[in-house]
């Protein structure tokens, strides 16, 4: 556009704007079903090669596709959960390309008229300076379509051959296409995490990225706000939400560097290398593919009906997918669950966010609350700080925690009963982590950590501290109340943390008044 363009831009938008990233995601979610999309062979992971393959999957002549009802219901349920419009009539097409893991030479997909369109995915992530504010955003879902998965190819560079396993060929996929409403890796990772949680809650996809049940490709470009979109690159080979964020951020930086050095970004496909954190151009891409889409001649249109009353009369119920019924079966979605936790237990939204986000943490929390008389607010503090702290430090998941919810509940009960002080409780927690075989009671007994209830003893110790620190006492008497904490610390050190802090404070205050 040259100078005139720059001037117009400056007039419209003020000073030249910063380059920002534009990120769109394509998610392929493997449908959680017993059999494949168009054949009756089993869906399984890590089975003997080519043992889960029917004649249709191997594309033998004379075989025809037969649609799996469960896959249709899964796509409809996912569409409803994402606020999509479900197309009452959707069509199947063939997408042609040659590759050894696609035996038919085409993939049956829904390009013209997919089963669901125009939805929204609302996601949140912890932002703000201290990363404890729940920031909510949304991304538009362009469409959801049913399609076949391809087989797996294992490359043996040594012998210059590729080994083909068709177990995965024909498995049902839901392709979720999102509009490029995101601008950075963090947003994309949060969106994918939310999608994972939703799909897992619905049961339509198990969402394990490492096992390939959820595959994400990112389309990344950069531009100045108000300008046309820049050239985009596609980034593939991402196997976790964390790597997704890394890959996108790297690609945005790389494109900015290219533009700032005067180059142009090329429209290409790049592969993410997890070890280096870089994206590398993928070779073996023969320019722009022309997929020669054509209607799938062996499948008539897929019809879904709003209610039983609108379904054609005299048709067996197993042959009809009814939206009303699917809607009734929708389970509690993560966003609803977070709200419920806040309302039921009175915890903060950011805590509720973390509880739902981490696998198993919500169940752990609820189990502890059930078994202890301590309030949920106290429990959440322990779960967020003590438990999460040690889990993160040792890189463990909640299910691997050496302290069970019952054990934590016991510690809290001891504290509630006045048998141990709060600082001792934390100490017991640490001890129990190292020696999970014991109970909290045993540890308290063995190490003599019980609360010192003998008031004469406490009185004596307080007196000793007061007597040996006349300067501090003087400071307190002349108005500096904060010094009292120091004296409290000294008393606690004497009692090895076993004194009731409330009692100690009261005694000290009385002595220094």
């Amino acid at each position, binding site marked *: 556009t040259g100078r005139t363009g720059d001037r117009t831009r400056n007039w419209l938008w003020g000073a030249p704007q910063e380059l920002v990233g534009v990120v769109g995601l394509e998610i392929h979610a493997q449908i959680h*079903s*017993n*059999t494949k999309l168009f*054949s*009756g*062979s*089993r869906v399984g992971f890590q089975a*003997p*090669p*080519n*043992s*889960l*393959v*029917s*004649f*249709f999957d*191997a594309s*033998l*002549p004379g075989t025809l596709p*037969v*649609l*799996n*009802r*469960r*896959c249709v219901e899964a796509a409809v349920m996912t569409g409803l959960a994402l606020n999509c419009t479900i197309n009452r009539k959707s*069509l199947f097409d063939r997408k*042609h390309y*040659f*590759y*050894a893991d696609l035996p038919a030479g085409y993939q049956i997909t829904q390009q*013209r008229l997919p089963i669901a369109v125009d939805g929204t995915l609302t996601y949140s992530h912890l932002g703000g300076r201290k990363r404890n504010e729940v920031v909510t955003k949304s991304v538009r879902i362009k469409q959801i379509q049913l399609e076949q998965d391809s087989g797996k*190819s*294992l*490359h*043996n*560079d040594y012998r*210059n*051959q*590729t*080994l*083909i*396993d*068709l177990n995965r060929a024909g498995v049902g996929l839901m392709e979720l296409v999102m509009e490029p409403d995101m601008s950075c890796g963090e947003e994309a990772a949060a969106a994918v995490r939310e999608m994972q949680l939703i799909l897992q809650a619905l049961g339509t996809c198990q969402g394990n990225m490492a096992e390939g049940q959820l595959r994400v490709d990112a389309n990344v470009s950069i531009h100045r706000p108000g300008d046309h979109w820049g050239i985009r690159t596609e980034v593939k080979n991402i196997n976790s939400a964390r790597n997704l964020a890394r890959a996108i951020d790297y690609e945005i930086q790389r494109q900015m560097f290219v533009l700032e050095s005067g180059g142009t970004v090329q429209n290409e496909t790049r592969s993410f290398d997890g070890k280096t954190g870089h994206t590398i151009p993928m070779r*073996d891409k*023969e320019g722009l593919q*022309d997929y*020669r889409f*054509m*209607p799938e*001649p062996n*499948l*008539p*249109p*897929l*019809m879904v009906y709003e209610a039983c009353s609108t379904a*054609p009369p005299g*048709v067996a119920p*197993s*042959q009809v*997918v009814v939206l009303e019924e699917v809607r009734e079966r929708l389970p509690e979605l993560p966003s609803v669950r977070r709200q419920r936790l806040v309302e039921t237990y009175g915890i903060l939204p950011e805590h509720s966010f973390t509880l739902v986000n981490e696998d198993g943490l919500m169940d752990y929390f609820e189990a502890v609350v059930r078994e202890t008389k301590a309030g949920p607010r106290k429990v959440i503090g322990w779960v967020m700080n003590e438990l999460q702290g040690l889990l993160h430090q040792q890189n463990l998941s909640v299910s691997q925690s050496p302290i069970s919810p019952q054990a934590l509940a016991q510690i809290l009960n001891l504290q509630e009963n006045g048998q141990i002080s709060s600082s001792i409780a934390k100490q017991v927690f640490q001890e129990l982590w190292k020696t999970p075989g014991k109970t909290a009671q045993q540890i308290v007994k063995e190490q003599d950590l019980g609360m010192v209830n003998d008031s004469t003893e406490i009185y004596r110790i307080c007196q000793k501290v007061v007597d040996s620190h006349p300067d501090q006492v003087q400071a307190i008497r002349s108005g500096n109340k904060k010094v009292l904490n120091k004296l409290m610390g000294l008393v606690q050190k004497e009692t090895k943390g076993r004194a009731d802090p409330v009692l100690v404070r009261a005694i000290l205050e009385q002595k220094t008044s």
Partner: protein
Amino acid sequence: MYVVVNYTRRLQTLAFNLGPSRYQGVTRASITSQDRKSKQNLSCFRWTHLITLVHQYSTRISNSKPCQVPVDLVDKLERLALVDFRNQEGLACLEKAIRFADQLHVVDTDGVDPMDSVLEERALYLREDAVAEGDCAEELLQLSKNTVEEYFVAPPGNIPLPKREERAAMFKHAEF
């Protein structure tokens, strides 16, 4: 978006009449696996498909002029669909087929919904999600001449189609 060619059946008939004569009366389902391997295998669907593709590029061309298929397009079609037009006669055949199909534009289709197939009003059968097939690895592997430990063997990546001149040299002794 390609132009959905109405009356697919009609076009299939055209293809039968204009395509290589040995495919008269042959339907897709009866093509045996041997035929599949034959170099001259142009299924009727491929022909229909090619005509559809060329239509996409030539819909702007007025119906009164004879259709000329540019050489780039011919190369592209050969690469995408792995068909071989072989020589000028083959191309002339294609152009005649397109010209014949162009007659469809004479029909007034205002207010008529496009049709994909004469069977599209049938109900789509929905299968129950129960395992009924598979577990026949041995049978399937026997069909391939090159296997390694229950995997099919393929060359690494697609083998690029040889250039036109090289192909001509390869097939100068071929039957057609």
